[in-house]
């Protein structure tokens, strides 16, 4: 018999989220969104607890979490970095921007740095194609980027977090 270990307050919050959707399995994606908003990511324990409340298998929940790139199973940093790889950004060199962030922060896409400050991700089209290539750093849009801008952006945001 395996057991799922989770903090009581987290379990209670997830229970409340599920309840707000009437424990309806067809609301799984909404439940996952709210849980990720609350926790910053979707650890396996959270998915197991969601599965119990919605009366579906943990495999099904994991299937959905692993399918959508918006859901993450690793904790995001305090300052999430997301680079758009939509068509416009891509053809205007977004990949070079990804590489530059990856090198400067010393992490791969999908990872968080060891201090828990920066996490690096890619996304599809933020609707600012005119500014391509675009990065979203801590909720702020940076446009018309070239690789040399990356150092400045990182320093600027480090300062915001007092580093």
């Amino acid at each position: 018999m395996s057991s799922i270990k989770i903090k009581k307050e987290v379990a209670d919050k997830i229970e409340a989220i599920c309840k707000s959707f009437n424990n309806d399995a067809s609301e799984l994606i909404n439940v996952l969104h709210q849980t990720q908003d609350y926790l910053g990511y979707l650890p396996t324990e959270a998915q197991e607890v969601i599965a119990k409340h919605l009366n579906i298998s943990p495999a099904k929940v994991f299937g959905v979490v692993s399918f959508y790139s918006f859901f993450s199973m690793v904790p995001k940093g305090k300052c999430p970095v997301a680079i758009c790889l939509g068509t416009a950004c891509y053809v205007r060199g977004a990949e070079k921007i990804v590489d530059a962030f990856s090198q400067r922060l010393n992490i791969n896409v999908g990872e968080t740095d060891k201090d828990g400050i920066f996490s690096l991700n890619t996304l599809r089209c933020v609707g600012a194609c005119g500014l391509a290539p675009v990065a979203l750093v801590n909720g702020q849009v940076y446009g018309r980027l070239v690789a040399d801008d990356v150092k400045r952006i990182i320093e600027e945001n480090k300062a915001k977090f007092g580093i």
Partner: protein
Amino acid sequence: MINVTIDKKALQVPEGTTILKAARMAGIDIPTLCYFELNGMNFENKPGGCRVCMVEVKGRRNLAPACATDVTEGMEVFTSSPRVLKARKTVIELILSDHPNDCLQCEKSGDCELQALATRMGIRRIPFNGEQSTYKIDSTLSVYRDMDKCVYCRRCETMCNKFQSAGALSGVNRGFPSVVGTSFSKPLGDTSCINCGQCVQVCPVGALTLVDNIQDVLNAIADPKKTVVVQTAPAVRVALGEEFGMKPGEIVTGKMAAGLRRLGFDKVFDTDWSADLTIMEEGTELLGRLTKALAGDKNVKLPMFTSCCPAWVSFYEKNFPDLLEYPSTAKSPQAMFGAVAKNFLATKMGVKREDMVVVSIMPCLAKKSELAREEFAVNGNRDVDFSLTTRELAHMLKQCNIDLTQLPEEDFDNPLGQSTGAGVIFGATGGVMEAALRTAYEVHCKKPLPRIDFEETRGLEGIKEATIDFDGFPLKIAIAYSLSNARKLMEEVRAGNPNGYHFIEVMACPGGCIGGAGQPYHHGDSDIIRKRMEATYREDAGKPIRKSHENPDIIAIYKEYYGEPCGHLSHEQLHTHYFNRQSTVEFEK
């Protein structure tokens, strides 16, 4: 009715018929890979994902998947036009480009549907050279997973969720890394998997196969210190012949016994015998519970569920821990046989427990896991040491140059070899119920049955219900196969048993053990399962004794050893208990 023309052949089909089914009605066999159906058994996998069945429809710009496109009035379909053949070959080449080409070593070789497709389409080279999927090998005691070979047909996922409601598998990830996996990619053994093995039975390729124990058994036979005894389950004798080119439904009981003797087993026994023993124990337990309930005892748990099917046992331990007192405590026939062999028989033969090896031949993958239950062993020495499937027995015979078709008919050895028709029908859904009724009726009513065949317990309906007249007492019974059907009945019981059932039989596999995961692959031909069922009832009808309590060797063992059914010694050896195996939530401080 709808008029349709397929390959210039005109026919009328009912509305809602797919191109694939219409073509089959016209005798045209469009190849498929992901599509899988068990006709009349409520199982269909139709993701429309593999694109092997693409056909050309006149007036339609792109090709259509035959499995997922309904025919429309006046539709003209071409299943083998140059455009179709080119596309179909390309699709297969693309699938093969991400599939290991180790056919020579693959367990599935000869039974692989992808291999058959490649052969049929004349694939001679794979022009695409791209990335290959790599996954860790994973295995339970029953199921072996090599997901490098997965073609993402999702048959296993549909089987696991829709048919069994076990929920161990799901499609995970997106794009190229898509695969059918477990929750958080855990080993299958750490999930809600119940080891029914039906994912293996429906896997078209070698991604899901069984855990092969042939060498373990060959080693035991070769060891001069060991006395190796074998038991064969009821459903094996009506399916083994298929592996040797015989028609489905041919009964090979005598040839199988001869084959096992040629393989070198010291004693060749029959699980049908211990099925008779199971009926004595389970039937007595049922009558005991009924008597108490009728006397007003409110603590008696009814309905009683059967407990022969180890996938079902695992299922209620993982999903219904609040109802663990409902199933019969009787062990399965495999486990009962092991207990009798290592206790009673070993002593009788003058063999030490440690020197006796008990092998079972089962239609089942779950039996490989059942034998490892800790409570089915004494000081770590298991009651049943190895379980082979029907397919493994066929492989073993072939390895040892034994052609089943050429063998004479031989009898089982005694005293654990003689069985009745009641033991035989354990192999089909409803069989355990019928066998139990034959005995329970005569024991309870103290008079012979007016008719021995219970037609109401037979057939391939997913859930059957009936009321049997027990000399004025209306005994309400239900029979289910597939654990999604069993789940419905369990939920009814949890809700207070509104239908007032007294006794419920559950088997996990399609049609019962005859459709077990260890049986020869049926590749979706449910007629094969029907033929095995007919053979089962034919074998029963031909038996001189058809009621478990009339089996002379069963009567003798109670006289000589166990005393009485559900007595002290049988409780010790022939009954068991169940555990809560559901995952629980614990709070961290």
